[in-house]
C-alpha cells in the first residue's frame, strides 16, 4: 500500500516528522493489570531516549476494551497496543519513536484515520458507541488552519489518488466501498461517478450539495465549520475520477460562518497547490467556487439545485436526463452531499475493503445524525450503520429528560416519518428505515417525548412542505395545501372521520404523482403518524380534544373553516405561485422612465460600492448565471433588494426585470422591502418548534407590536421566521443580525429586545 510506503520511507526522520501522544488508560480495570507501572516504565524510557519534547503522555478514561488491558494508544496513526507490560517499554520506545516502526507483536489495531474514542479519553457514554469517520477532525483540529489538517494526514488521500491510481481505479474503490449518498436517497456513489465519467463531454462538473434545508438538521454545517478541508479534498478526488476541472459548493446563505471557513480553506488549498492549475505539478487541474443558496428547501433536490447555480428559479426538472448525463450548464455532473464527500478521503486512504467492513449488508460505513428535541445530550453524533435507534437515543443521547417516556423519533425531517417506541430496536440503515415508513434522510433525528401531539407534528411538517413546494406540479402544490387544511381542521377539533380517510387517500396520491423528492416524500409525516398513532387523530375528531393538551388552545381560539384561507395560507405561498409578473410601482417603489428622485448620499455611497461588485461580475465569462450572487451582494450592501440595484443588475448582465423579480420572489432569503436595523429571525425548525418556538414568536410579536414579516414603525426591528438556523442544540433560538441567541425563554427574549432597543436609542438614532 502506498500510504505504508510513505510512512516508512524515511524511518530515521520519523521522530522529527511527528509529535507523538500516548494515551494510557488508568481506570480501575487497567490499573489492576498494572497500567501505572507501564506508564512509569514508559516515562523512564522516553526520558532515556531523549524524546521528552516529542512524546506526550496523556492519561485517558476507559477505552472500552478491558480484556486487552493495559492499553496504550499512540497518535498520530491511532496505533492501539494491548496487553503491554513494563518490560516491553524499552522495545516499544525504540521501535515506535526512534525507528518510526510500530511494534508489531503488541499492536491490536493501527492506522485508522478515524478517531474511535475521540481524543481517547473521557466522556465514554457519549462517545463510546460513536465512530467518528467523516467527523474525524471535527472538534479536534483548528478548522481555519491547513497546518492542523496536514498534521492529521490531510491531503494524503489526494496524493495517493494522483500518484498511484488511475481515475478508473478511484471509481472502482468508491464502488467497492459500498458508499451510498448521504443526502437521503442513498444512491450508490461509485455508480453515479462511473455514469458521469463514461459520458463523452469536453467539460464536466462536480457539485457539493450543502443546501442543508431540513429543519432540525445541522450535520453539514458542523462538518464544514469543523473540518472544511476534508470536503474540499473529497471533491478534488471526485473531479480527478470523473474528469472535471471545476467544482461548485452550493451552500445556504444562512450559514455565514461555514461559508467563511470554506473561503479560508479554499484559499489555503490554492496556496499549497492542492487546488488550481496543475495540482502539485501533475497534469490535473481543478478549482472550486462557492455559490450561495437563498433559502428554498426544494433546492436540495439535485436538478433544482443545478438551476439555482445557473441563476434561475430553483425548480426541479424531469429525470432523465440525469445530472450525470446533462447537469450543470448542460454538462455531465456529479452532485453529492457534504457527508458523502467527507467519506471519500477516508475510503481512499483506508481502502474500500476496510470501509465495506463497517455497517450492514446494504449500508456501509457510518452515518452522522443531528440529535435534537427531547433528549438529554443534544448534539452531533456519528455511529456505524446498523446501530439501533435505541442505542442512539438512550446510550449516545442519554435518554429522555425529566423522566418522560419516549414517544417517537422523527428521521429525515419533513420528508421522513415518525418511528414509534416499538421500533426502537430497528437498526439504522437505508432499507430498515424505509420498511417502517421513514427514511434515512440527511441525518436529522428529532426525539419526541410522551407529551408530543402527533397530528400537530404532522401539521407542522406539512406547513413546511406546503410553503416550500415550488408550485410546479399540481399534486404537490395543491395536495400539500389541502392536507394542511385537513390537519388544521383536525387539530382545531373540527375534523370528521371522513377527513382522516381523505388525508390518507390524498397522501398516497401526492406521493405517487409528484415529480421530485419533495412532493414524493411530503406525505410521509402524515402517513407514518396515521399508521402508528391513528388513535390520536381519532381522539381529536370524536372527542374534540387533544389528548396531549397541545392543540387545546388552538381549539378555543382558532376556528378554521373550509373557506377561511387567510388562516391556512402564509403569504409566501402566494408570492411563490403567483408572483411571476412584474410587481406594480406602488408595491415595490420602483420608478420607471428617466425621472429619478434625488438619491440620499448614503444610497449613493452604496451605489458606488455595488457598481464595483457588478462590474467584476459583468466582466466574467458567464454573467447571467451570476444573477443570484449579485442579488446576494445587493442585499448585503443595501439591506434589501433595492429597486435601483436590481435595475443595474438587469442592465449590466442582460437579464429582464421580470426574470429578476421571478427569482427574487422564489427565494425566502431575498427581501423586496427595506428591513429594520435589527433583523430578527426566529427559528421554526423542528427542534425549536418542539421546544416552544411558537411561544417565542408570540412573545416577540406582542413585545414589538408587529406580525411576522413586518417592520416596526421606527425601523428598528424586522420580525421574520427562519426554516432552521442549524443551532438545534440550543433550541429555541433566534438570530439578530447574524448573531444567534439560544435557549430562549419569554423573559430572556424580552430582555434581549430591550437591550437592542436601548443600545440603538443610546447611540442617538
Amino acid at each position, binding site marked *: 500500500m502506498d500510504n505504508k*510506503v510513505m510512512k516508512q520511507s524515511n524511518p530515521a526522520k520519523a521522530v*522529527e516528522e511527528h509529535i507523538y501522544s500516548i494515551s494510557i488508560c488508568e481506570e480501575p480495570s487497567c490499573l489492576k493489570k498494572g497500567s501505572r507501572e507501564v506508564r512509569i516504565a514508559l516515562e523512564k524510557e522516553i526520558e532515556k531516549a531523549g524524546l521528552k*519534547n516529542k512524546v506526550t503522555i496523556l492519561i485517558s478514561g476507559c477505552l472500552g476494551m478491558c480484556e486487552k488491558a493495559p492499553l496504550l494508544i499512540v497518535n498520530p496513526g491511532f496505533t492501539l497496543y494491548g496487553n503491554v507490560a513494563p518490560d516491553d517499554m524499552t522495545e516499544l520506545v525504540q521501535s515506535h519513536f526512534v525507528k518510526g516502526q510500530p511494534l508489531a507483536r503488541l499492536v491490536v489495531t493501527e492506522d485508522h484515520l478515524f478517531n474511535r474514542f475521540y481524543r481517547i479519553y*473521557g466522556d465514554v457514554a457519549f462517545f463510546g458507541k460513536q465512530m467518528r469517520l467523516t467527523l474525524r477532525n471535527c472538534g479536534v483540529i483548528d*478548522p481555519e488552519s491547513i*497546518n492542523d489538517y*496536514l498534521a492529521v494526514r490531510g491531503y494524503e488521500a489526494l496524493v495517493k489518488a494522483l*500518484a498511484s491510481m488511475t481515475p478508473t481505479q478511484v471509481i472502482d474503490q468508491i464502488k467497492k466501498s459500498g458508499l451510498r449518498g448521504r443526502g437521503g436517497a442513498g444512491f450508490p456513489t461509485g455508480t453515479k461517478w462511473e455514469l458521469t465519467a463514461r459520458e463523452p463531454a469536453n467539460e464536466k462538473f462536480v457539485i457539493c450539495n450543502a443546501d442543508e434545508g431540513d429543519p432540525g438538521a445541522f450535520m453539514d454545517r*458542523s462538518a464544514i465549520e469543523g473540518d472544511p478541508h476534508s470536503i474540499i479534498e473529497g471533491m478534488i478526488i471526485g473531479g480527478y475520477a470523473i474528469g472535471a476541472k471545476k467544482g461548485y459548493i452550493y451552500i445556504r446563505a444562512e*450559514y455565514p460562518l461555514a461559508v467563511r471557513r470554506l473561503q479560508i480553506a479554499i484559499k489555503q488549498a490554492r496556496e499549497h497547490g492542492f487546488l488550481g492549475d496543475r495540482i502539485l505539478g501533475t497534469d490535473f487541474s481543478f478549482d472550486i467556487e462557492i455559490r450561495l443558496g437563498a433559502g428554498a428547501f426544494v433546492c436540495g433536490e439535485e436538478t433544482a439545485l443545478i438551476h439555482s447555480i445557473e441563476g434561475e428559479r430553483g425548480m426541479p426538472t424531469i429525470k432523465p436526463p440525469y445530472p450525470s448525463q446533462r447537469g450543470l450548464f448542460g454538462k455531465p455532473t456529479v452532485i453529492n452531499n457534504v457527508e458523502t464527500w467527507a467519506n471519500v478521503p477516508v475510503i481512499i486512504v483506508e481502502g474500500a475493503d476496510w470501509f465495506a467492513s463497517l455497517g450492514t449488508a446494504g449500508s456501509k460505513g457510518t452515518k452522522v445524525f443531528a440529535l435534537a428535541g427531547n433528549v438529554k445530550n443534544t448534539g452531533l453524533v456519528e455511529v456505524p450503520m446498523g446501530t439501533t435507534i435505541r442505542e442512539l437515543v438512550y446510550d449516545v443521547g442519554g435518554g429522555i429528560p425529566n423522566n418522560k417516556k419516549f414517544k417517537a423519533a422523527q428521521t429525515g425531517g419533513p420528508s421522513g416519518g415518525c418511528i414509534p417506541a416499538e421500533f426502537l430496536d430497528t437498526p439504522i440503515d437505508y432499507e430498515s428505515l424505509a420498511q417502517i415508513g421513514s427514511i434515512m434522510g440527511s441525518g436529522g433525528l428529532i426525539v419526541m417525548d410522551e407529551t408530543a401531539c402527533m397530528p400537530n407534528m404532522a401539521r407542522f411538517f406539512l406547513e413546511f412542505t406546503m410553503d416550500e413546494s415550488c408550485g410546479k406540479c399540481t399534486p404537490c402544490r395543491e395536495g400539500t395545501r389541502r392536507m394542511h387544511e385537513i390537519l388544521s381542521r383536525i387539530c382545531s377539533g373540527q375534523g370528521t372521520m371522513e377527513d382522516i380517510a381523505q388525508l390518507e387517500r390524498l397522501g398516497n396520491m401526492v406521493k405517487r404523482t409528484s415529480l421530485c423528492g419533495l412532493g414524493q416524500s411530503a406525505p410521509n409525516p402524515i402517513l407514518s403518524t396515521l399508521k402508528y398513532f391513528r388513535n390520536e387523530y381519532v381522539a381529536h375528531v370524536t372527542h374534540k380534544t387533544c389528548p396531549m393538551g397541545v392543540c387545546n388552545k388552538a381549539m378555543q381560539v382558532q376556528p378554521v373553516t373550509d373557506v377561511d384561507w387567510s388562516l391556512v395560507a402564509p403569504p409566501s405561498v402566494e408570492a411563490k405561485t403567483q408572483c411571476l409578473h412584474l410587481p406594480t410601482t406602488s408595491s415595490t417603489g420602483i420608478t420607471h422612465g428617466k425621472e429619478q428622485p434625488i438619491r440620499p448620499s448614503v444610497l449613493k455611497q452604496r451605489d458606488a460600492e455595488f457598481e464595483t461588485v457588478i462590474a467584476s461580475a459583468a466582466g466574467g465569462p458567464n454573467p447571467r448565471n451570476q444573477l443570484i450572487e449579485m442579488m446576494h451582494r445587493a442585499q448585503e450592501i443595501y439591506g434589501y433588494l433595492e429597486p435601483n440595484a436590481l435595475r443595474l443588475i438587469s442592465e449590466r448582465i442582460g437579464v429582464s426585470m421580470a426574470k429578476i423579480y421571478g427569482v427574487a420572489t422564489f427565494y425566502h432569503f431575498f427581501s423586496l422591502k427595506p428591513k429594520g436595523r435589527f433583523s430578527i429571525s426566529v427559528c421554526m425548525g423542528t427542534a425549536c418548534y418542539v421546544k416552544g418556538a411558537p411561544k417565542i414568536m408570540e412573545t416577540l410579536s406582542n413585545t414589538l407590536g408587529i406580525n411576522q414579516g413586518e417592520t416596526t414603525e421606527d425601523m428598528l426591528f424586522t420580525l421574520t421566521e427562519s426554516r432552521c438556523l442549524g443551532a438545534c442544540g440550543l433550541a429555541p433560538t433566534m438570530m439578530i443580525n447574524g448573531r444567534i441567541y439560544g435557549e430562549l425563554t419569554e423573559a430572556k427574549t424580552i430582555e434581549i429586545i430591550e437591550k437592542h432597543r436601548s443600545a440603538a436609542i443610546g447611540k442617538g438614532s
Partner: protein
Amino acid sequence: MSDLFKLLQSKRSKAIRQMVEKGYLARYRVYVGNATCEIAAGAGEVWDIFQEAIRSGQLKDVYLSAKGCAGRCNLEPMVEIIEKNKMPVKYARVTPKKAREIIQKHLLGGEPIKAWTIK
C-alpha cells in the same frame, strides 16, 4: 510518482514545525469550541478571556487553539485543557467568569475545577 509523496511529506513536516513554533508543545494546550453553536452559546467571550490572559503575559507556556464542533451542543461552550502527563479536562458551559477562575485555579494553580468538568 513517489515525488508527490515526498512533496506531501515535506508539507506535513513544515506544518508540524510551524505548529511547534506557535507553542504546540507548551505545558498546557487550551482548546475553545468555535463553530456556530459554540459562538451562540458565548464561546467568543470565553476565547477573549484566554487570549487576553496570554497577551498580557499572565499566562505563559499555554497554547490556545480554536476547534470545530465536538458534537456536545447542550454543553457548549466547552473548553478542553490538555496537560502533559495528566488526564485531559473538558469544562462544560464555560462563562467568562468561569474562564477567569479556570485561569486562576487550573492554569496558574494547577488544580482542575472538578465541579465544572464533564464526567
